[in-house]
């Protein structure tokens, strides 16, 4: 929140009304208001709560920020319980300010839901809290800016048609240089597949983007990118802004129809895939959408099983470990496919512990990876960068150390940024990149 903005009484009423509305809201939210028994199990299983044990990082306490307000303002049934706890009915401007910090300290990784005896997914409450501060215009600067940028340009990086085409040309010349043959990145052509990465891959993680292009080439698939929809990233998931999420998802849908593709293939971006496949897709645009929504890992694993790819694992001899992005492992079930690929592309693949759907969050989930400044509090607090390096990323750092890996594959633009910074900050000799970066090295192409 910016220093000068003032939270008015109307804002507070708006926040309270939004909490009240939970009583007719989604089933999960209603249940989560009612059934938590305060057993404290989530506190043991949350990376933030474990790294910095105090009341405010306790997932149940964070969820109580909303829950308590709901109980005082909800139906008669919930009011009775609110009465027992005797909290005051006030929500102060300071409370709402700290909500910004508190709801962004949770990365929404959903690990707590794996262990909660009632399956409570605290990320749903976190997102509700973020939606409330967003509606008041109080979302963290980077969140709000990224959404504005995306609404204006259709991608989070603010790329224009010209800069996108430049990036494509540059990547094509890099590919030519690396492989000695022309590998095309088709744009705006009718094809079987529309490939959509996170737009950050084009600028910040070009090796990943190149690896994906090489894969399509090697597998002989008919694919294209769209100059109007080349960014699957969607901060509406992070800010709780459903309208934005749908707007951004519509770009992908429209591009699929325009280019008459059979498949929408999302790249190395967990939350992009979650929105395209689980939240948007058929739910937004009807069950009869004329294309299938899938992911590059899924089709790559299929092509590998079909024997269509020749790979030389000796090209990647260093110890490699894999970080399961929460939106792949826990929220979309893409768990084994990246491993199949990594094993085929490397000689020394090492699992971290815990892994798969029990992995620790990188500490950059839920949009945190792009947040560096102080948020939600005016002073005497660390910046989000400090927080990510010392609290949010602590469990992951220890896990990576234990593997002894020199390359950390993390197929998600958020995870990549967070983990690169984390390795730098703690002076770890570990390179961070995507899975397809390694594929690009291991693949044997027909010349």
């Amino acid at each position, binding site marked *: 929140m910016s220093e000068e903005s003032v939270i008015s009484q109307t804002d507070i009423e708006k926040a309270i009304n939004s909490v009240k509305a939970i009583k007719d809201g989604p089933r999960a939210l209603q249940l989560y208001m009612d059934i938590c028994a305060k057993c404290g199990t989530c506190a043991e299983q949350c990376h933030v709560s474990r790294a910095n044990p105090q009341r405010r990082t306790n997932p149940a306490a964070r969820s109580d920020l909303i829950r308590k307000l709901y109980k005082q303002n909800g139906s008669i049934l919930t009011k009775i319980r609110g009465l027992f706890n005797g909290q005051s009915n006030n929500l102060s401007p300071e409370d709402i300010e700290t909500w910004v910090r508190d709801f962004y300290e949770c990365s929404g990784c959903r690990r707590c839901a794996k262990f909660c005896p009632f399956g409570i997914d605290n990320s749903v409450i976190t997102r509700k809290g973020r939606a409330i501060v967003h509606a008041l215009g109080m979302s963290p600067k980077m969140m709000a800016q990224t959404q504005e940028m995306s609404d204006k340009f259709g991608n989070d990086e603010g790329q224009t048609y010209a800069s996108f085409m430049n990036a494509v040309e540059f990547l094509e010349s890099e590919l030519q240089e690396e492989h000695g043959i022309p590998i095309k990145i088709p744009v705006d052509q009718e094809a079987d597949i529309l490939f959509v990465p996170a737009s950050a891959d084009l600028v910040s993680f070009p090796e990943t983007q190149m690896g994906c292009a090489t894969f399509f080439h090697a597998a002989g698939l008919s694919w294209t990118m769209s100059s109007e929809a080349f960014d699957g990233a969607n901060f509406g998931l992070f800010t709780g802004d459903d309208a934005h999420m749908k707007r951004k998802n519509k770009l992908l849908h429209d591009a699929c129809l325009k280019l008459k593709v059979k498949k929408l293939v999302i790249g190395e971006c967990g939350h992009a895939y979650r929105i395209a496949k689980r939240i948007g897709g058929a739910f937004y645009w009807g069950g009869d959408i004329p294309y299938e929504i899938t992911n590059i890992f899924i089709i790559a694993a299929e092509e590998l099983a079909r024997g269509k790819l020749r790979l030389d694992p000796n090209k990647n001899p260093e110890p490699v470990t894999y970080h399961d992005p929460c939106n792949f492992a826990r929220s979309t079930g893409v768990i084994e496919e990246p491993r199949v690929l990594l094993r085929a592309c490397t000689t020394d693949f090492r699992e971290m512990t815990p892994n798969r759907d*029990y992995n620790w969050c990188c500490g950059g989930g839920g949009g945190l990876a792009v947040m560096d400044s102080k948020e939600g509090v005016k002073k005497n607090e660390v910046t989000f960068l400090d927080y990510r390096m010392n609290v949010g990323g602590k469990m992951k750092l220890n896990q990576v150390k234990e593997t002894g890996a020199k390359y950390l594959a993390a197929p998600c633009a958020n995870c990549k940024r967070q983990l690169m910074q984390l390795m730098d900050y703690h002076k770890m000799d570990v390179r961070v990149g995507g899975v397809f970066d390694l594929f690009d090295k291991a693949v044997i192409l027909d010349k």
Partner: protein
Amino acid sequence: MGGIKIFIGEILPYITLIVFLSGITHKILKWTKAAQGKMTLYPAASTPGDKWKRIVKEIFIFENLFKGNKPLWAGTWVFHVSIALILIGHVRVVTDFPLLWQVLRMGKEDVDTLSTTLGGAAGLVIFIMGIYLLVRRLAVQRVREISDKDDYLTLALILGIIITGDIMRFVTHFDLAQSREYFVALFTFKSVAVPGDPAFLLHFFLGQLLIIYIPFGKFLHIPGTFYSKSIIYQE
């Protein structure tokens, strides 16, 4: 004393029944009617049958909790199993099963011995586990910091019910013939003497308070678990 007896024994039970049934029906209808988007937590169940298998497994062995917190799992699993055993045992408070005992070739004394041994053991175990849960709530910082008054109140209520129950079992040796006669009268809307054992009255009173509180407080985790697990397990 007479007034209290009439209230607890002849008026409150009907109130309890009405409040509990309408409260829980309201909640369940509300949950059922609420819309819900997909929010599967992977790996997901592939079929509805598979989903229910996982839910039932969770209900019986608390698998999530076992993975998440072993000491709490042990304590609370024993706690809940004791509740289940005790609830089954409580059927004999209302009625008896002479035919079943005949089939099992058990005489009245055998049945009483069984009841005393199993019921007595469960009564003691649940008391210890109830105390464990209270001590844990007070002693473990991560639990204490999220505990509210209603967390302590519900625990105190449960402990009150356990203690009065154990008093009837071990001290006043409550005669079940009295309660059976009473409950038959209650269900047929006839007036009959409410058992006068103060431990019974208090136990029955607290028990009814608990039932009344189920639709309003954390006990909603009993029906709620089926719904919340269903949301995250289904593909």
